[in-house]
């Protein structure tokens, strides 16, 4: 018998794919982690990433079920397939973690991030900023004679692109929420 004969796919009793391919390429994965909303749960998740040297590209957290005390943490992380599998397994064994879902491998999903950008300027630059904001469907949520605050929603890449365009036009400050993500279709995680 050879290891090559073994079929790929999750063990039927396991939430985890225990048979990853173990390439060396670094992949970007978006994880949805459903946790008990108790004190310190975020510290546990962040401490896990810090203690074991995993990357966090983005992390968002909020309570999603007030009666059931459930929070949803969306983590964007990078690593080799072996590291990604480890991250999921390590998250899964934190006691107040209910579920770990890898939205990147579990089918198509949508990712959105919200950002606020403060752009200061006068004259042509100010007009150009407003014109580009219109193209990016960013809305003006605050305005003075010298500045705008734009609100933009989209993928992280779209927000990066918008921020890059605003930089020469007087970008002063950016606040981003980090990624929120959901799977497409009618299936639900919780």
């Amino acid at each position, binding site marked *: *018998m*050879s*290891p090559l004969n*073994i079929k790929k796919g999750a*063990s*039927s*009793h*396991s939430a*985890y794919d*225990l*048979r*990853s391919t*173990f390439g060396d390429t670094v992949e970007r994965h978006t994880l949805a982690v459903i946790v*008990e909303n108790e*004190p*310190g749960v975020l*510290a*546990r998740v962040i*401490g896990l990433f810090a*203690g074991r040297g995993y990357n966090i590209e983005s992390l968002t957290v909020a309570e999603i079920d007030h009666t059931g005390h459930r929070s949803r943490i969306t983590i964007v992380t990078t690593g080799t397939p*072996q590291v990604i*599998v*480890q991250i999921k*397994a*390590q998250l*899964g*064994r*934190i*006691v*107040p973690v*209910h579920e770990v879902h890898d939205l990147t491998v579990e089918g198509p999903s949508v990712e959105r991030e919200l950002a606020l950008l403060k752009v200061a300027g006068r004259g042509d630059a100010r007009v150009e900023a407003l014109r580009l904001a219109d193209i990016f469907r960013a809305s003006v949520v605050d305005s003075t004679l010298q500045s705008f605050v734009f609100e933009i929603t989209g993928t992280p890449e779209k927000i990066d692109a918008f921020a890059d365009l605003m930089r020469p036009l007087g970008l002063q400050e950016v606040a981003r929420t980090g990624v929120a993500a959901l799977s497409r279709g009618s299936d639900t995680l919780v």
Partner: protein
Amino acid sequence: MTKMMTGAKMVVQALMDQGVEVVFGYPGGAVLPIYDEIFQQNQIQHVLVRHEQGAVHAAEGYARSTGKPGVALVTSGPGATNAVTGLTDALMDSIPIIVLTGQVPTFMIGTDAFQEADTVGITRPCTKHNWLIKDTDKLANTIHEAFHVATSGRPGPVLIDIPKDVQFATGTYSEKSKRKSHYAPQVKGDIAMITELAEAMATAKRPVFYTGGGVINSGPAASQLLRELVEATGFPITSTLMGLGCYPASGPAWLGMLGMHGTYEANMVMHDCDLMINVGARFDDRITGRLDAFSPKSVKAHIDIDASSINKVVRVDIPILGDVAHVLEDLLKVWKTQGRRTDKEALAKWWKQIKTWQATDCLGFTQDGPVIRPQYAMSRLEALTKGHDRYITTEVGQHQMWAAQYLGFEDPNRWMTSGGLGTMGYGTPASIGVQMAHRDALVINVAGEASWLMNMQEMGTAMQYGLPVKQFILNNERLGMVRQWQQLLHGERYSQSWSQSLPDFVKLAEAFGAKGIRCSDPADLDEAIAEMIAYDGPVIFDCLVEKHENCFPMIPSGKAHNEMLLRDAQVKGAIGATGAVLV
């Protein structure tokens, strides 16, 4: 009927409901209400240790030798920080313990109050889970949950931080049976995967069982099933340091311990096997040696209850997530009901090969000259204590490896040693924990003189509770393992590895009120050990051994299993530059 009581009373009540018999602890300001409740009852025995680290290691020793969770109770601040080493030790070795810490009152948390420490913050990475209780109504339920978490799935240490006002306040006691928990790790393995393993076992030509602490943690049934499986297949079996005793050392298929200081035959079998069945072990770096040369030709199966242990460092082909006892039971069932047979011819050839490796006699030594060799001391200790109801604890270092090599364990839960963390100072308090659980047994802590000094204050505890623990110190007046590594890879520059200004251990024993025995002549050793065994009380046995003995066999850092060093003559330049950076 709801029961109202104070938080302090709840702690004691919940421990009683959980069947706790012994608590190892040390009082202080923030736990006084709990100690007041302990004073007013007789069901739970409190053992006053001399240092909080000792309390946690004692609880570990209790847990490892009984399979039941151990309990420690310490105060806030320094009490809690002193417990950290024990918690980390228990986390690394998957030992179920519950540590209760006092905390400053809730309204003072965050004010840098006297003896305040962020205990849940400090212990978050070194516990399986921890809780800070802010509401007395939730206290009892959390204690019940803590026992559940500590003992379910992969066992581990948990901590409950209880502010003093929560201990004083009155709340509703919740019964053990009312507890609801979402924490329920999977114990049954995937039957398709188990069947695949059975298939692999039937066709394997050079198989080996590589077993670990998971077998012990899974309970006595797991060891029993493992023995049946080895019997049914005739496969050779080796074990990690943590798994010693899961298969009897006198069993016909036993190869001895594997790994850095494991036997030649065990490591050669691991290197050359074509099917490796990992049962409750975790491919630790002490086991694998150089990873890219680790067992290159084998199909690897891994039975583990912790998904994060699977594929962590070594890629496996047949992963089985589940509890060892459950999986072995199913595996045996599949093996028998499907009428599977091993490849007898190939297996006979494999055993023939193994016999040639065993003929190397890698643990062989001769006791010549006037100085006791540590291997001889261990062999004699083994011979003279074998028939006893015996439990062994150890400290960490050369003596620990010699104990693992020369003492034979026939049953699980008889061997308590700090494996993952390698905590010097573990053995003495652990021996106290073991003796508390097994009052009539012969409990021996095999120690080095340097390790032993790290928690020697616990001799006071042994005296106070009449615990006849035997401290068997292999005294080479060196930090032996450090000295060995300095010899091997730091040009024989023995930096700070001498135990200077050692106490007179016999007088030290007498100062504690214990018995001291010193032995330096091989001819006197048997008689001295017999005297130690016969003495009804704690003994410090100062066994003066050869000072420059190295521990062999040894897989040098950065080398593969088939590159073992068997004796001193081979050590020159054995470790390369890349190996030198490894621990």
